């Protein structure tokens, strides 16, 4: 990748260590992605906030990189952290809380918006279609490319931070129009109760868990950054699209799906057998001690859906809901918050189920969730069992 004279100077430390580190990161990812140059972007979304995920060395790195007083060059939003700071006595160690606050303090010094959300696309006003961004959170990167047509690569926590600090990203991969094509197309062939006699499946009838599993499978199968999904995009609501995006982001390198067929597209079936194979991998428990919703964080669509399903009933066990703070505020205004709290739900803002210190194997053997992404990290990182069910079944089976 070619750097301009100014960029070269920045890399060599002439404008300070913060910019030098940022350009070192951009150079490495630019090389990896065969980029020729860096281009300006409109929005960065940075991950690497939860102390459980970045650890002591990450905390120290951020303290160092923010110490020069350099600020981000473009609007930059931030992923969830480890806990909801408005809640008291949540049983976290002092070490965790102090390190977490140090991390958020470093981002604040860098001028990052303290948004603590993994669904910034539902919270903030969006740049124009076709604009460039640098998004680290994988569900959000997939959603931006696939649904909103804002172009981003599936960035890492460090590369998105480097882009925030420089305002630039390598012109590569999914930023280039000709790479936004799929070589394979995953075709859901699941029979649902509503599928017709010929076995034709209307993807309209697949639930959000099916879409999560479909995304997870597609991410696994695809060796390219863009994969095709055979469904009618305009028939699929945002809840399912989020689930599809999150599943896809979790399992592989895919940063985008397309529902239109490109030429030379090979079709791969996602039938009962394929669904079962990914389901069995992620579903590790028959029952859950508690219910956990929100990976990605819930938006108003999911809150309203749950509110309608609950309809005066009560959960028989604890139900933890992770949502974005502005969503919590809207739910408060439209009173769904109170109805759900009455039903036994507890709300957590600014955090997410991914590697949350609030759900550990000391506290719970297993959880019930409808999120494929949550299942993956509960299984691999938190080592907690997961009973994977769709939201409708969760409500039916766990409320009276």
């Amino acid at each position, binding site marked *: 990748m070619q750097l301009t004279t100014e960029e070269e100077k920045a890399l060599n430390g002439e404008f300070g260590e913060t910019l030098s580190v940022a350009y070192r990161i951009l150079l490495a990812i630019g*090389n990896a992605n065969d980029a020729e140059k860096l281009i300006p972007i409109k929005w960065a979304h940075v991950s*690497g906030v939860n102390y459980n995920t970045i650890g002591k*060395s990450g905390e120290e790195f951020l303290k160092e990189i923010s110490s020069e007083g350099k600020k981000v060059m473009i609007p930059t939003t931030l992923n969830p952290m480890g806990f909801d700071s408005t809640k008291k006595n949540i049983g976290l160690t002092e070490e965790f809380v102090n390190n977490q606050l140090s991390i958020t303090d470093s981002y604040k010094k860098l001028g990052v918006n303290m948004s603590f959300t993994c669904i910034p696309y539902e919270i903030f006003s969006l740049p124009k279609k076709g604009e460039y961004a640098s998004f680290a959170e*994988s569900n959000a990167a997939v959603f931006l490319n696939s649904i909103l047509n804002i172009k981003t690569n599936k960035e*890492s926590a*460090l590369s*998105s931070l480097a882009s925030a600090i420089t305002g630039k990203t390598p012109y590569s991969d999914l930023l280039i129009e000709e790479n936004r094509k799929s070589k394979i197309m995953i075709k859901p062939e699941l029979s649902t109760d509503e599928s017709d006699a010929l076995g034709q499946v209307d993807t309209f009838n697949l639930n959000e868990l099916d879409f999560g599993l479909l995304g997870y499978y597609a991410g696994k199968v695809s060796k390219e950054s863009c994969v095709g999904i055979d469904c009618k995009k305009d028939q699929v609501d945002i809840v399912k699209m989020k689930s599809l995006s999150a599943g896809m982001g979790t399992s592989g390198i895919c940063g985008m799906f397309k529902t239109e067929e490109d030429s030379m597209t090979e079709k791969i079936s996602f039938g009962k057998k394929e669904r079962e194979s990914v389901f069995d991998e992620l579903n590790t428990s028959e029952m859950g001690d508690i219910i956990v919703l929100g990976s990605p964080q819930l938006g108003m669509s999911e809150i309203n859906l749950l509110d309608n399903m609950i309809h005066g009933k009560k959960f028989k066990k604890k139900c933890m809901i992770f949502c974005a703070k502005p969503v919590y505020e809207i739910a408060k205004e439209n009173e769904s918050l109170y109805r759900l709290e009455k039903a036994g739900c507890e709300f957590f803002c600014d955090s997410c189920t991914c590697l949350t210190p609030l759900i550990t194997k000391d506290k719970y053997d297993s959880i019930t969730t409808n999120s494929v992404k949550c299942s993956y990290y509960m299984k691999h990182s938190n080592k907690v069992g997961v009973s994977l069910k769709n939201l409708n079944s969760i409500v039916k089976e766990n409320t009276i």
Partner: protein
Amino acid sequence: MFNETINCRKIVEGKAEGKVIVSKNPINFLAMVNLDTGKITDQSHDLFNISLKDKILVFPHSIGSSVGAYSIYALKTNNLGPKGIICTAKADIITASGCAIANIPVVDKLEKDIHDFIKNESRLILDATNQKIMVKNRN
């Protein structure tokens, strides 16, 4: 001893010499690596229970969480990191960015199939700066 050279592409510069560990599977550094031991924790992974410490990791690429880049950095600061990384598929953003701040040399785009020359515990020299891997030809 190292009589065979494989040309490759530099992603992060540097030089390392050591024993390799070879995997056919991608790694999710956030979810599959214990940062206190350096070992792979995923039972279905072909490197299960094997430590990355001071090895030259030969694997396709990283997958999954964007935060995996910090995990690579954490391994390095805990002295549990690999000495170098050879991506047999294409180097990805997580590996490239994590290694860029951890100063772990990384290469990809090998002109020959490295599996023909190495197995676990084979020694090699990874010279990312000069875009060369030196291995011992078994023939």
